[in-house]
């Protein structure tokens, strides 16, 4: 009989919960009062405290609050996995009265499109995807411009000629980053080699740290990463080697180790787009901003970077910003030796956005 007791008890609970559901007059009134504020929602793939990708998106959110003050209200949900949960969270935000929703990871693409159909009056902004609709805009940054500068520094500073690269998933953005960094490193150091470990996660400090240790044990003396935690930076600091921060300035985790970091600065974009939503000029656009828009920035160079390397990096940074230099300039062959870019030719955005091949010289194959 105990067992049916459990059944009864839990069923009773569900019944009570459902019964209480209808009693909620206070909430409704409250909603009307705040209706003139623009409510902006953010969906994050990692925890706000990841010190990388999500942390920077949240700084963007705070910038929106600071800039638009009392006219906006922001909400966020963190650590939303890119599976079936995403759609519910996004829809819940829209149902709760959000006027604009930023979904900040690639895996939210189809859920965002689906929810956008159900809420035609809500404006959606999806990061790093390629599907748009009348109320869904996309945005991303040309992180590969930053990777070029990182590659130059790495190529110059490595003693073992081995760069360790911790990669997440073989999507075009990540492959592009590896290729850009490799081409730059090789242009200043023909002996350089890249070792890549795929960890199949965006955020897992344990796995990232293990990958970092494995790479160092294989001779890497400089680490790059395309994952979101500061764990590899801490390992680099412990082992006395160098590393580049990812998405955010991670000097706090590796005061001696960090050479520089690619900073994803979403604040200018978020502030502008929320402003457009408020004054009615918002429309669905596709934004891919680089150094020139301020969406990609570099952290201050570390103490270990010699003056000549710093000068070279600064010059490349400037040249890319001014449009004089493209990270993918021919001659470049694909890994299998087939030609990709002719001498002097630069890559078009279409190929970059769908990049699924290594360039010549990188060892190993894409997973």
């Amino acid at each position, binding site marked *: *009989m*105990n*067992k*049916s*007791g*459990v*059944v*009864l*008890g*839990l*069923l*009773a*609970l*569900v019944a009570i*919960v*459902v019964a*209480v*559901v209808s009693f*909620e007059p*206070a*909430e409704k009134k409250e909603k009307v009062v705040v209706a003139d504020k623009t409510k902006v*929602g953010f969906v994050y793939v990692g*925890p*706000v405290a990841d010190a990388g990708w999500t942390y920077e998106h949240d700084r963007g959110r705070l910038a929106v609050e600071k800039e638009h003050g009392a006219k906006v209200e922001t*909400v*966020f*949900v*963190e*650590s*939303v*996995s*890119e*599976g*079936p*949960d995403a*759609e*519910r*969270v996004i*829809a*819940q*935000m829209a*149902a*709760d009265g959000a006027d604009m929703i930023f979904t900040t990871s*690639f*895996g939210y*693409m*189809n859920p965002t499109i*689906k929810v956008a159909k159900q809420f035609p009056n809500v404006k959606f902004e999806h990061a790093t995807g*390629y599907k748009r609709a009348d109320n869904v805009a996309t945005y991303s940054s040309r992180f590969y411009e930053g990777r070029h500068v990182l590659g130059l520094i790495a190529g110059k500073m490595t003693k073992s000629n081995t760069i360790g690269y911790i990669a997440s*998933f*073989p*999507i*075009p953005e990540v492959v592009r980053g590896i290729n850009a960094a490799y081409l730059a490193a090789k242009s200043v150091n023909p002996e350089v080699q890249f070792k890549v470990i795929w960890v*199949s996660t965006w955020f897992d400090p344990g796995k990232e740290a293990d990958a970092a240790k494995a790479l160092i044990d294989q001779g890497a003396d400089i680490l790059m990463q395309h994952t979101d935690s500061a764990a590899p930076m801490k390992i680099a600091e412990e082992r006395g080697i160098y590393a580049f921060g990812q998405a955010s300035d991670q000097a706090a985790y590796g005061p001696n180790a960090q050479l520089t970091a690619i900073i994803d600065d979403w604040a200018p974009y978020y502030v502008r787009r929320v402003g457009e939503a408020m004054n009615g000029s918002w429309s669905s656009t596709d934004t891919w901003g680089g150094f020139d828009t301020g969406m990609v920035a570099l952290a201050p160079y570390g103490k270990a970077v010699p003056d000549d390397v710093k000068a070279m990096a600064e010059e490349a940074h400037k040249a890319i910003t001014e449009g004089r230099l493209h990270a993918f300039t021919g001659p470049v062959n694909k890994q299998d030796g087939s030609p990709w870019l002719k001498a002097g030719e630069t890559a078009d955005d279409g190929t970059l*956005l*769908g*990049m*699924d091949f290594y360039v010549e010289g990188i060892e190993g194959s894409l*997973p």
Partner: protein
Amino acid sequence: MIMIEARAVIRWYHEWIAVFIALLLTAVTVSVLLSSLGLDPISSLQRIFIRPLNSVYGVSELLAKATPLITIGVALALGFRAGIWNIGAEGQLVMGGLCGGAVALAFWNIDGFWVMPLILLGGTLGGLAWGAIPAFLKVRFNANEILVSLMLTYVAILLLSVMVHGPLRDPTGFNFPESRLFHDDATLPKLFPAGRGHLGFVFALIFAVLGTWVVKRWHLGFEMRVTGLSTTAAKFAGYNRDRTVWMALLIGGGMSGFAGVVEVTGNIGQLVPNISPSYGFTAIIVAFLARLHPLAVIPAGLLVALSYLAGEAAQLSLGIPAASTQVFQGLLLFFLLGASLLVNYRIRFWRVA
């Protein structure tokens, strides 16, 4: 001195009261936590636990979230009763989603009422096959099914990743690791006009009823229970341990696979590298919360599903961090399991002379 001893008399309403007390204690503790954060506990509790259910949409989403938890929870309850510790339901779910999804993609441009049953069958067989591996290794080599099934979970997740990055990738998708979207005949019908509650929930309810029948009325269920309680007794009774091992893992694998394909076709609508937020592991908690009783898995699954929705609501309307979900779940489990212990046992204090 403190002693824990079994109670001689347990009435059916004791469990009932215990559940009620546990929920009350959870509510009180969460209230204390919320007020320490400077929030009004009553209105906060309402926002967190009631508001997610305040619409057809919310209830529909709750059912969608609970569907895999209940389906797998029932299967695990049966297996755990037999003392077969299938910890790898997550991997069996992933294999089910992968195989069923592969069938759906094979017929991506062919309509027909027969497509859906074929997809469900494919998914179930995928999970079944994944459950058969630890069963075979246990029967043949006495390999520990906990380790084998757990490790196979990671193999399954990586296999899904390989397939979605490679052969099953959407040819028009810019090389991003996602499959094509399934067409309408390859997605499960919805139960409500809003939200994603789908036909899979009805299947889950049927499984729970069938599971109860297996436990109560079927000789095999009795056999499995006896084997779980005492392998020696089972041996004397002439029961075949190998058969129990096979049944427990095949039921677990098949139903987890079914849950996986239902999740993919009912909830996601395509194959992606990450199809489950650890449903297979959470279902273990659900099964134990229900005291391994298949029918009790239904409310237990709904309750755990609600705790996830509550965690999101807490972030959305109160701005408290995601870790709150885990705190709510932890408190709930602690009190429920603790209360259950006190139903079956009592604590006695006595002085040593």
